[in-house]
């Protein structure tokens, strides 16, 4: 099985590394340590009830400082999917998430793109999403790297889409 490349994109401090660590090692470190450059994780999803549901990923956890410059860098090449992360406690990061999602779909047409709204453990239930979200038809998943809520689900959704699209 050929591993598929999934990019983790989003502003600094939204929890990309914590999401990757929760998925791969099932741990969480509350102290913030910014990613410099790119950290690469390998992960094999457990086989699910559906045939072909198991999947191998290479997760590219990127430096939030790349911003949209990531689309002109070598890192993004041959990515099958991007999970774009926003912080539910900082609205500006959600707006940035939407913009990055739009740019990813333009730069990498046909690839899977999902929005991850992280830190659900710290946010209230009702969040005013940026108005442009509805126009993009990108799936949105609320997660908490701290509690593990929906982290696997977000990647399995990506894996399922990658399989269905033959990416």
């Amino acid at each position, binding site marked *: 099985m050929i591993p598929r490349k999934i990019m983790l994109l989003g502003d600094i*401090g939204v929890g990309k590394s914590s999401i990757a660590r929760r998925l791969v090692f099932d741990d969480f470190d509350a102290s913030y*340590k*910014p990613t*410099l450059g*790119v*950290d690469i994780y390998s992960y094999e999803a457990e086989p699910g009830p559906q045939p072909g549901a198991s999947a191998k990923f290479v997760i590219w*956890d990127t430096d939030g400082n790349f911003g949209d410059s990531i689309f002109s860098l070598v890192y993004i090449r041959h990515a099958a999917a991007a999970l774009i992360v926003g912080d539910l406690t900082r609205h500006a990061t959600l707006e940035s998430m939407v913009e990055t999602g739009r740019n990813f779909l333009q730069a990498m047409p046909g690839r899977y793109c999902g929005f991850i709204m992280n830190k659900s453990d710290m946010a209230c239930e009702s969040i005013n999403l940026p108005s442009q979200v509805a126009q993009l038809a990108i799936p949105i998943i609320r997660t908490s790297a701290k509690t593990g809520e929906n982290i696997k689900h977000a990647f399995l959704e990506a894996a399922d889409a990658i399989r269905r699209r033959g990416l």
Partner: protein
Amino acid sequence: MHSSKPPMPSAGADSDLEAAERAQVGTMLASRGVYGLVWLDEDLLVRRRFGTIVAFVTVGAPLVQSIPACIGLEDEIKTLPNTRDGALRLPNVSMIGADGPGPRLNLAFYSMERGRVMVAAHAGTGTTLEIELGRQIRARLMAEAAVAAKSQELARTNADLRIANTKLEQFAAIVTHDLKAPMRALRYMADDIHAAIGAGDDHAARSKLDELRRQSTRLSTMLSALLRYSSAGPREVAIERVDTRALVTEIVESLPSNGIGVDLRGTWPSLDTFAAPLDLTLRNLIDNAIKHHDGARGHVLVACSDHGDALEFSIADDGPGIPPEHQDSIFLPFRSLSSNREGMGLAIVQKMVIAVGGTVTVASNPAERRGATFTVHWPKIGL
């Protein structure tokens, strides 16, 4: 400034270089910022490595097994042009394993003679001090963002607290206003019972006792409804089947008439609605029409009409009326045209009606005609 540069490259166990040559090559490469080399065959299997920084690369295995960052880039690496500028570079990457992060590498892939591809790996640029400084600057930015988020959270909590306090005050006012009159009625009934017993009129005493029991039960029901209203919010108040005619009849019978006659007109359907708020709304308006009447005799007309998506109740009296300049302020808390009133009734009515999505308005012009008409637009649920 402290340097983060790794030790000079030394050959791996698979190297066939002599020790002296290895040292010489290592020094030369290190002086150019190169700390590890990996030789690959055409299929990108690792054939040889050189330098401790690439010690994690497994000889004889596919390159992607040791460096998954290359996954997806295999075809590009295999077809690199054999020129000086034909390198593929992957700067500043680190492979994270269960044992922790691997070395941070700048990777460059070159095509060699006879189709061989070489991977040169050298340590990430910058000293440990520079890297740490970069980390700390970002950590400070994140801390500032966290403080800002906490401030927002605090502001939101304070706003919630203010709303909670307001609700508490409103609840206290409702309890004071709406339960006081029935409590007073209970006291009067007790006096009547006492008088009836004193006069030896058992029949009257029993009748008043029955009335007292009924009123106390209603008080208890009202109190429960208010408690539910206070704790759950108006939209979560129980929805019950209400016979509007029976409700208004019961309200009229429970109020002292003071010489004021009350008539019912129009269509009075039964409907599922927020029963307690409707009871309190109509009770307050009818009670106001009676108690604010300035005549020994008077008349109140209570009408209901079905507008499809809503019921419209009107309570019209022939009392002194409300001057236009007071018609806005009467819906504010603690505003009453009578100095001896608490002035909460209409504020409560408006709050109830707005909470269920309706409206309440007043029409009156005492300069032309006596009386006032309150109109309540009460939406039906689920339409």
